[in-house]
């Protein structure tokens, strides 16, 4: 019964997409006006469809010959499914937003095209455009040296901390922890137990559910690794899990839970963590910059944001979605899509996008706009995300990235729930990852 319902829904989507596409094609021929279809997912709260519609309306006002149809396509996974369905129906969207980490899949399956020719055609302007993107974001646009995507809705992880709790235990509220050792020290002071030994407030909180653990772990791995090496090779064909440094990073998580007892044992959900922070039951949390608006609206205490505490060095993961242009459409349409992407990623637009959504603007010049300066004056906590970007690197990205995430998540969880030691977990993760990636070697 359920499968049938799902099948019917899928077919319904397919039909809708197909008719949308077909309608687009016809109109192009009749009126000579180009009609582009644009798939985009929404991954954070707030009226994002409205903001996207606004960008589209602004673009159409300046370019009367082009109509852009933005199509909301669910989450990132759903978006890939819909693009694939559309490709099989020979009606791909002209451009789309998808995870930066999907670029290897997008390139190897021929779903997206490299953008180097467009950039070269723009000459010096094109070069300056690309160079303006912050390296922590731009780094994960490359496949085999070619640029496959343009950063757009990007985020990074920061630490949110409860200043009132800091004052309560005699810590300076303007000096958040900067190293792992300080983190343990602060968290120990901030952990509050009641008379019967139950924890009323944990010092620190991290989300370890599937889909979140791998993101946080990237940060800790970067902070601890030799020379700031990431969890994968640059060509995306090798995952680097089983190193003594990564085992140490995982062991540090286990120690926070079991040895120092300053972090809630077991698995805390990504979506529960801000609620716990707001309820005062955890004093410092690792979370996305995208939560800044939520926290600043709902906190009934003074809060601060800070860099993720470093160990051998500072480090933080970036994540989020980029613009891609489809293969299998005419060069003329690809050119028009490129034009739209440039329009949507002007410094002012990205600054506005940053302010409206909580995503971090991926271009350096966005942060010199008056918009952003006013915003920082109103919300000084927003600045940390930008300052930290120079230490940030892309999250785990390989071929078959979502399967790779799952492998890392599963094995981190096996260590957290005591099924495996940190060393065993990393060894298993490595073996499973190698098995998946061997066909790309």
């Amino acid at each position, binding site marked *: 019964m359920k499968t049938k319902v799902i099948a019917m829904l899928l077919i319904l989507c397919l039909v809708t997409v197909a008719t949308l596409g077909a309608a687009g094609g016809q109109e192009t021929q009749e009126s000579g006006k180009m009609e582009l279809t644009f798939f985009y997912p929404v991954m954070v709260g707030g009226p994002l469809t409205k903001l996207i519609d606004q960008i589209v309306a602004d673009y159409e006002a300046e370019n009367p010959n082009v109509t852009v149809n933005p199509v909301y396509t669910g989450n990132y996974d759903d978006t890939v499914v819909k693009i694939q369905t559309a490709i099989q129906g020979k009606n791909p969207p002209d451009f789309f937003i998808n995870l930066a980490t999907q670029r290897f899949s997008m390139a190897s399956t021929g779903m997206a095209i490299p953008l180097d020719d467009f950039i070269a055609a723009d000459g010096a302007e094109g070069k300056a455009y690309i160079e303006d993107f912050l390296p922590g974001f731009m780094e994960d646009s490359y496949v085999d040296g070619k640029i496959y995507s343009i950063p757009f809705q990007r985020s990074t992880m920061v630490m949110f901390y409860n200043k009132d709790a800091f004052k309560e235990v005699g810590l300076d509220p303007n000096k958040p922890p900067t190293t792992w050792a300080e983190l343990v020290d602060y968290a120990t002071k901030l952990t509050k137990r009641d008379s019967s030994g139950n924890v009323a407030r944990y010092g620190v909180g991290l989300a370890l559910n599937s889909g979140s653990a791998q993101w946080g772990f990237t940060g800790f791995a970067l902070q601890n690794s030799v020379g700031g090496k990431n969890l994968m090779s640059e060509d995306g064909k090798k995952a680097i899990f089983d190193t003594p440094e990564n085992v140490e990073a995982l062991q540090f998580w286990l120690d926070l839970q079991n040895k120092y007892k300053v972090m809630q044992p077991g698995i*805390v959900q990504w979506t529960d963590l801000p609620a716990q922070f707001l309820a005062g039951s955890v004093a410092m949390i690792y979370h996305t910059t995208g939560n800044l608006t939520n926290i600043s609206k709902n906190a009934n205490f003074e809060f601060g944001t800070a860099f993720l505490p470093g160990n051998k060095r500072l480090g933080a993961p970036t994540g989020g979605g980029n613009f891609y242009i489809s293969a299998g459409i005419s060069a003329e349409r690809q050119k028009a899509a490129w034009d739209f992407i440039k329009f949507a990623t002007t410094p002012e637009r990205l600054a506005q996008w940053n302010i409206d959504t909580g995503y971090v603007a991926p271009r350096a010049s966005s942060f010199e706009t008056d918009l952003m300066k006013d915003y920082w004056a109103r919300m000084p906590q927003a600045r940390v995300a930008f300052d930290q970007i120079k230490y940030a690197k892309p999250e785990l990205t390989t071929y078959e990235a979502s399967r790779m995430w799952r492998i890392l*998540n599963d094995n981190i969880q096996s260590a957290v*729930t005591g099924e495996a030691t940190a060393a065993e977990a990393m060894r298993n993760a490595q073996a499973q990852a190698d098995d998946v990636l061997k066909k790309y070697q």
Partner: protein
Amino acid sequence: MKKMKRSVKTNLTAWALLAPSLLFLLTFTVFPIFRSLYLGFTRYQLGMPQPEFIGLENYADLFTSALFWKVMGNTVVFSLMTVIPSMVLGLALAVLVNRKLKGIGFLRTSFFYPVVMPMIAIASIWMFIYMADTGMLDQFLQTLGLKPANVLSYKETVKPAMAFMYVWKEAGYLMIFFLSGLQNISTEMYEAARIDGATGWTAFKKITLPLLGPTLLFVSTIALTNSVKLVDHIVIMTEGAPNNASTMLLFYIYQQGFAWFDQAKASALTVIMLAIMLVIAMLQFVKTDRKIHYN
């Protein structure tokens, strides 16, 4: 001659009347089954324009994968945890509400209420109950002076926690079948039994249970296949965590197909699931057929 013509005509009318539902059945049941059978023998991943035939490789991969067997184990354990308790509870509720009492309609409705709610909504509600530390369950435990359990976090507790929720939802559904079964049992039987001095438990054992035979068979088939087909609550509550301790067969299929875009593996798994369902249905009809009293 004339007779044959008429039968053709009757047949045609019958076919015409059946056509709409047949069309749907073919499109949404028969075609997908055969398509899955075929795709199970191919390699068909993201971006591949055409599936490529590889024989039994998908099945060989699955049968040698530790994760596959873990998922199968989870599914069996979860079925064991839910089928019997929900049937017992369903039957108990049915017996309870199968009386002529004031306000029995209200009781029946409230027992049936969880069935009407979609699984997604139920899972979201129970997530608040099970939420680590701040959830209802953990708050309750802490009032009793116990440690918060964070049940969704641990491989020992995640399946029982989900099973408990599912039994709560499913019992009311099964109750309806039992209730209709109970109402088909003639009251004369109980009257005769009462004259013979058999009441309460004896009457239940000697009259109710045997006469509920067909209903029991039907309900157990439904309950068992339902428990294998569960997926919604896993997406909402755990995504299979921790370390796949709550990954069931259908969720694994969903992951393969829609998170990792491996349509061929997902199809092979679907075929395996279909085979399991067929075997369950067949076993139950063949094995239990003889023992059932039809009246």
